[in-house]
């Protein structure tokens, strides 16, 4: 059989080489695979959902089993999500697994990107793959937001309205862009079907294409690896793809699916029936987007209500936090390999990874960026925090405004110090023995044991 294939495809040489591909041995290299397997689960559950979801804004009267909405007018899209949740066999389970998988898909991309950043894995020759990765992050967020908006419930409709307003705030071209995207003034009939096409066709196609490129480049360039005995810039030390890595990855895939299925089966997520159908005159609180859009929401909540007039055009206060800041964040993120090259003047090929402590200034910058994004995300939930901890929401907002300017700087400085100390101390921070050992001397005094 294999011979038959080999004679026709000539794949033997290629396959033999592929099976012997060496994978370096470190758990952090599995984080990207976690993201990949989340995506596999997303496609599988998403196909099931597509069988029942109707991307249709036509008003219908609900007549299903959920009593609290019976007799109400709603879009066919929302009605189909209710049917999917209450009447379709395993529909709610699939919806919940899909939603948890989406949240964790973006989370695992972020953790994977942090691994790549803090170990300097983006350096020459891997700059292209870093760009592909940043694009994947952006498209993953896009898939998440379009998916979150599809059920046409009150909460997601509020999110769409915010997205509409942010687009509209772009000076000069905002109105044209919003009409292009939404097909009219919000709320539009056509937006659900447009989002649907984005969510199930364009974005997944882009993501699958880019994942292929991402892995293809990885295959071609070989893995980067941590420093260690026998490891040089010119080799890769680890286990072969077959059998070691194949079994590891298969096990990991099954475990990822298990975690997502457990969450989907045990923990309720996005109970859209409680929000009710979208109604442009109503809004429910607390209104938040999914976590990966939380930092954009946080920016809108923290930024002061400043409006400028430029050449007779008003620039609404949503423009800076909604468009400028995210634009800068993704630009800096995407260009980081080139920015760092400019700073270090290091144009060499690097196949050996840094430990975070090896390049303290990069670790400090990364920590600061992480804290900045984290604080913005927290700000996106300021009203929930206010209620949970019983503190006034204005207090949280002011605290976070100040913290946003101070905490990243201080955190970056602390990270720098810690790196420097680790360079001297040597041990891994988690394995280091804490404190000092004292010995009692015969005379009753104490001395330190080194």
């Amino acid at each position, binding site marked *: 059989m294999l011979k038959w294939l080999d004679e026709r495809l000539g794949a033997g040489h290629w396959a033999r080489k592929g099976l*012997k591909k*060496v994978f370096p*041995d*470190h*758990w*952090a*290299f*599995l*984080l990207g695979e*976690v993201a990949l397997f989340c995506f596999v689960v997303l496609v599988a559950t998403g196909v099931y959902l597509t069988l029942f979801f109707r991307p249709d804004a036509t008003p219908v009267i609900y007549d299903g089993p959920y009593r*609290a*909405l019976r007799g*109400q007018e709603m879009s066919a899209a929302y009605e189909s999500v209710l049917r999917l*949740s209450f009447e379709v066999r395993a529909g*709610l389970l699939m919806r*919940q697994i899909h939603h*948890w998988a989406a949240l*964790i898909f973006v989370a*695992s991309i972020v*953790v994977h990107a942090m691994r790549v950043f803090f170990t300097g894995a983006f350096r020459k020759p891997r700059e292209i793959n870093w760009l592909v990765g940043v694009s994947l992050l952006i498209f993953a967020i896009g898939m998440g937001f379009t998916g979150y908006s599809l059920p046409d419930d*009150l*909460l997601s409709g509020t999110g769409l309205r915010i997205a509409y307003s942010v687009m509209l705030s772009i000076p000069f071209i905002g109105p044209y862009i919003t009409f292009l995207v939404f097909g009219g003034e919000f709320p539009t009939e056509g937006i659900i079907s447009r989002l649907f096409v984005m969510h199930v066709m364009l974005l997944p196609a882009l993501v699958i294409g880019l994942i292929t490129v991402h892995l293809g480049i990885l295959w071609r360039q*070989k893995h980067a690896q941590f420093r260690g005995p*026998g490891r040089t810039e010119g080799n*890769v*030390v*680890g*286990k072969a793809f077959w059998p070691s890595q194949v079994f590891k990855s298969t096990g*990991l895939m099954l*475990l990822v699916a298990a*975690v*997502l299925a457990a*969450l989907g089966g*045990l*923990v*309720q*997520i*996005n*109970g859209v029936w*409680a*929000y*009710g159908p979208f*109604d442009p005159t*109503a*809004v*429910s*609180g*607390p209104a*938040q987007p*999914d*976590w990966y859009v939380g930092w954009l929401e946080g920016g809108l909540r923290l930024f002061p209500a400043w409006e400028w007039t430029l050449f007779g055009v008003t620039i609404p206060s949503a423009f800076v936090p909604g468009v400028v800041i995210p634009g800068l964040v993704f630009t800096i993120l995407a260009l980081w390999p080139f920015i760092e090259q400019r700073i270090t003047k290091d144009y060499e090929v690097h196949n050996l990874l840094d430990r975070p402590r090896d390049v303290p200034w990069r670790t400090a910058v990364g920590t600061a960026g992480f804290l900045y994004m984290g604080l913005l995300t927290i700000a*996106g*939930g*300021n*009203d*929930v925090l206010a*209620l949970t901890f019983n503190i*006034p*929401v*204005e207090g949280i907002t002011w605290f976070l405004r100040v913290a946003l300017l101070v905490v990243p700087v201080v955190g970056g400085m602390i990270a720098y110090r810690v790196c420097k100390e680790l360079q001297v101390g040597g041990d891994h921070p988690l394995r280091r023995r804490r404190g000092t050992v004292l010995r009692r001397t015969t005379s009753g005094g104490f001395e330190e044991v080194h």
Partner: protein
Amino acid sequence: MLSLVLWAAGASVAPAQEPDPAEGRELYIDSCASCHGAEGEGAEHGPSLVGVGAASVDFYLRTGRMPLANESQQAVKKEPAFDDAQIESLVAYVSSLGEGPPIPEVDTATAELSAGQELFRDNCSACHGAAGAGGAVGSNAFAPSLLETDPVQIAEATIVGPGQMPKFAFEEEALNDLVGYVTYLQDVPEPGGEDIGRVGPVAEGFVAWVAGMGALIAISMFVGRKRERSPAEPDQA
């Protein structure tokens, strides 16, 4: 036999005496007059109670919001300071001071859930949250959770508008539907499993990171752990 005992027990409590405004007045002087004035006319620390109506008094006393310890803070739900009979006589006394809305009658069994849902979505969910779990309103005020409140008190609050809350002038039937929906929310089946606070994406994101991503990082460390006993001959490429 049992019914006789019950009848006897009922009889001993039941002589359904009208609550006594005079008794209410005594309680009023003891516990309320220092802020609301000797005749309910209001004073430096408390508003006038003339014409607030039975609904208002019943709401504030049964949810323990009055007496209030610190007038600069929003009144919160706590154990009522008075027993049923005392509350009834206080209600009788204060409502004798002037005309006001009576305690509304609700029967959640006859409520139209869907009509109530619509009213709730349009009027209540902006502050109390889509699932009635409560929300922050700003300027140190918050809309409390409705998930532990008795139906009559929900109806009272709707027409009285305690604290920062607006008053709502619903028809009797609409009010009943609304209260019916809120009571439904209190006992709503959660078909999707564990409900995580019913505050939406903030709690979901937290669970996704801590439980989901946390578990997957732990799993990655487990799957990718270095095995000490495996042969130390690395493959090279």
